[in-house]
């Protein structure tokens, strides 16, 4: 390439403040092969792009370099402009002199020198660049949704209503997630079950939705438009196709005293069970660890009483492979437990609060179950230790959240609101009771939220104490809560009958393992990362994978549902096309030099490399060589660095290009 154009952007003043852009343009003009160079205030603006297009025509440029922001920001923009000017888009590159230069250095001379160097390197890259033709791949118009909380349910229903098939995979025996556990929901106090269960039933009945509960993702292969996902169906010990959901097995099972996870361990369930009466599907599952039949080979009552003969102790885990074009991840959250410091975790725990040792210290979700009409107490607020009605309840906010020294620095977002809700629910049920709340701040941004919080304080008589609790201990049948009121500047001590901790919202257990299977990134807390905090809040950096709900960060229901619908809309946009264009950065084999050692095949994580036979005209085998399936190749280039005979090459990152850049150092 001998007629390269270099365009240096000021980015308003973002670049020109620390980099002498005129000098950079001038120096670029002196590089052999650069036929044109200039600087301009905003290259990405319409006039900026027009300038580029005009220059390509006027100076007959055969390659362009835009020295501006990060290519992650505007590479697409300029490649499109270059294409409009008649250039192959892959002959347009960007030199990052903003994020990697002007924003991180203050010394103008050194920053300018660095910018010149960056441009020099990138000019070599353009010089050795090749025209690449986009690769098109077909799109499988079927989506996978992982997680059946409100996020997954909403996304699945939206996609299915648009006429596309959906596979919904939930790891628990029923869909519903945390929302199904809630009693009433802020800011309107409508009953969670009443708005949730109809949606769950819609999922079960939707002709476009295939529901797999008690199932997990085993393996994910492929890429946008063409994923192959292996789903593990854990053995339920009950044949779903035969079970009518009559529930007789559950009433007859002799093992009845197993703490029910759905009620946070405060209600009991049998060994063969559905998590809650409105479960979808209402096919029971046998909890093998607690089942006498599995533990000692004796019992078998449920199989005997089951009319349709659905109980199957021999059932094994099975696997299916699902072809899908897009994936929505909606695996939600879990609550921080404060009694034990999880092993190997940087999180500290709150031994001083006595949670796990004092039975009347509970978390917010347990309070939801106590307040729920379908809960273990039938909706009466009764404390776990002795079943008495508590007359003084202390609520503590920000337990775990916003406590850097304890390992979590973020705000869990929903606790201020649900604590206000809890004080109201409590006040509605125990008229002569008093609720106290220890809080750092009341964070109530959201439609109708501040009004809701004020109602708790002003009308429902919750006493809000700004300050933190230092210690709690049992004295007789009371819990002594010692804390400080920083507004008044005094120490306070409250004798409580019940303490409710608003513990931090954390990602699900195993969120990192799932991310690794999916090839998506996550932050240091294991929340999944969106591609852009502001402009791509539901897309993952990995194409074709989208996020919904609390797995991406703490969220309330309105935000979760909005994000789920947004993710669904992204999936529908993808499915609106029959074929996808993908970046042609893929490996190619030089068959002449390939010696067929298949070292490349061993390192390719995508399984993109196949063995190809080369035959002469008579059909005699001459040799075997590697062949890269361009639809499958991820474009990592590991094969190229591995190939001992240098006969495989990644387009866009050829040895020639890289060496030329190093030569220009």
């Amino acid at each position: 390439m001998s007629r390269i154009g270099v365009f240096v952007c000021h980015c308003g003043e973002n670049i020109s403040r620390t980099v002498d852009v005129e000098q950079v343009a001038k120096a670029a003009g002196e590089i052999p092969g650069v036929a044109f160079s200039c600087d301009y205030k905003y290259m990405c603006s319409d006039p900026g792009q027009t300038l580029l297009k005009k220059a390509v025509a006027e100076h007959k440029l055969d390659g362009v370099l835009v020295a501006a922001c990060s290519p992650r920001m505007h590479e697409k923009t300029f490649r499109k402009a270059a294409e409009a000017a008649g250039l192959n888009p892959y002959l347009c590159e960007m030199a990052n002199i903003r994020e990697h230069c002007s924003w991180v250095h203050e010394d103008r001379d050194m920053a300018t020198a660095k910018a010149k160097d960056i441009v020099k390197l990138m000019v070599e890259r353009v010089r050795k660049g090749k025209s690449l033709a986009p690769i098109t791949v077909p799109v499988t118009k079927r989506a996978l949704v992982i997680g059946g909380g409100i996020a997954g349910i909403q996304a699945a229903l939206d996609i299915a209503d648009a006429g596309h098939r959906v596979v919904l995979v939930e790891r628990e025996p029923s869909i519903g997630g945390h929302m199904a556990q809630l009693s009433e929901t802020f800011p309107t106090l409508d009953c969670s079950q009443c708005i949730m269960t109809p949606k769950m039933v819609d999922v079960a009945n939707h002709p476009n939705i295939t529901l797999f509960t008690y199932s997990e993702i085993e393996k994910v292969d492929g890429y946008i438009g063409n994923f192959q996902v292996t789903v593990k169906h854990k053995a339920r010990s009950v044949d779903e196709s035969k079970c009518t959901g009559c529930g007789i097995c559950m009433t007859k099972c002799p093992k009845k005293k197993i703490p029910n996870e759905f009620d946070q361990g405060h209600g009991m369930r049998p060994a063969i069970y559905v998590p809650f009466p409105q479960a979808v599907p209402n096919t029971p599952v046998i909890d093998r660890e607690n089942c006498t039949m599995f533990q000692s080979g004796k019992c078998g009552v449920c199989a005997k009483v089951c009319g349709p003969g659905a109980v199957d102790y021999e059932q094994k885990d099975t696997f299916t492979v699902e072809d899908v074009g897009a994936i929505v991840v909606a695996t939600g959250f879990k609550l921080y437990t404060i009694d034990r410091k999880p092993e190997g975790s940087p999180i500290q725990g709150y031994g001083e609060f006595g949670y796990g040792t004092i039975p009347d210290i509970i978390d917010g979700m347990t309070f939801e179950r106590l307040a729920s009409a379908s809960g273990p107490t039938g909706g009466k607020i009764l404390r776990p230790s002795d079943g008495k009605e508590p007359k003084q309840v202390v609520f503590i906010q920000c337990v775990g959240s916003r406590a850097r020294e304890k390992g979590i620095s973020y705000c869990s977002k929903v606790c201020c609101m649900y604590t206000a809700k809890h004080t109201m629910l409590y006040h509605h049920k125990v008229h002569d009771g008093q609720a106290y709340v220890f809080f750092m701040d009341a964070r109530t941004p959201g439609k109708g939220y501040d009004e809701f919080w004020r109602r708790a304080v002003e009308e429902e008589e919750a006493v809000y104490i700004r300050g933190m609790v230092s210690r709690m201990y049992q004295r007789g049948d009371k819990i002594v809560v010692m804390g400080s009121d920083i507004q008044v500047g005094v120490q306070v001590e409250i004798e409580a009958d019940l303490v409710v901790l608003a513990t931090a919202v954390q990602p699900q257990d195993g969120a990192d393992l799932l991310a690794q299977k999916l090839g998506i990134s996550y932050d240091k807390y294991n929340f999944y990362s969106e591609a852009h905090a502001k402009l791509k809040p539901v897309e993952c950096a990995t194409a074709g994978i989208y996020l919904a709900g609390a797995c991406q960060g703490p969220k309330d229901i309105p935000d979760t549902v909005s994000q789920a619908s947004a993710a669904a809309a992204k999936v529908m946009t993808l499915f609106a096309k029959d074929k996808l264009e993908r970046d042609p950065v893929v490996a190619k084999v030089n068959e002449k030099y390939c010696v067929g050692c298949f070292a490349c095949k061993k390192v390719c994580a995508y399984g993109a490399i196949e063995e190809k036979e080369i035959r002469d005209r008579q059909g005699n085998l001459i040799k075997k060589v590697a062949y890269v399936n361009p639809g499958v190749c991820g474009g990592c280039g590991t094969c190229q660095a591995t190939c001992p005979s240098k006969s495989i090459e990644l387009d866009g990152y050829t040895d020639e290009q890289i060496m030329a850049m190093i030569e220009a150092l």
Partner: protein
Amino acid sequence: MHAATKQHDFEPKIVAFVCTWCTYAGADLAGTSRMQYPPNVRVLKFPCTGRIDPVFILRAFQKGADGVLVSGCHPGDCHYMAGNFHARRRFAAFRALLDFVGVDLNRLQFSWVSAAEGGKWVDVVTELTERVRTMGPMPEFKELEHEEQWSGAINTPELKEAYDSIG
């Protein structure tokens, strides 16, 4: 000029080979967060650390780099699933080789910097730059560059003879 920017006698040349998805993005984040670090580093972007051939590192040293940084996604976070594992194995062997030929390994750093770790990028680059600054320039490979047989020319008498004998 900022008061904190000191003038040094020796400005080392640091070359960083980074992957697009994690470290390049981490360096972008350092930029958007307006963090500050020494301007000695020149970044070469690769799709994945798996693409980085050790030859590139040798060539960079030869071309005047005083320190080289190779950085990609954390183990397990590779955008391409396993590229960084292959890189890790390759570079473990390569480091041993460099050590054997007598290169001070303090000049070559491998690290994992994720897209979320703008601060770590700053730390890694600053540390390497300052360390190499105290070590001084790296002459070894650059001298080789000037010896002609390294660049492929064959006009030393011994080599000529050897090549002729193959002839």
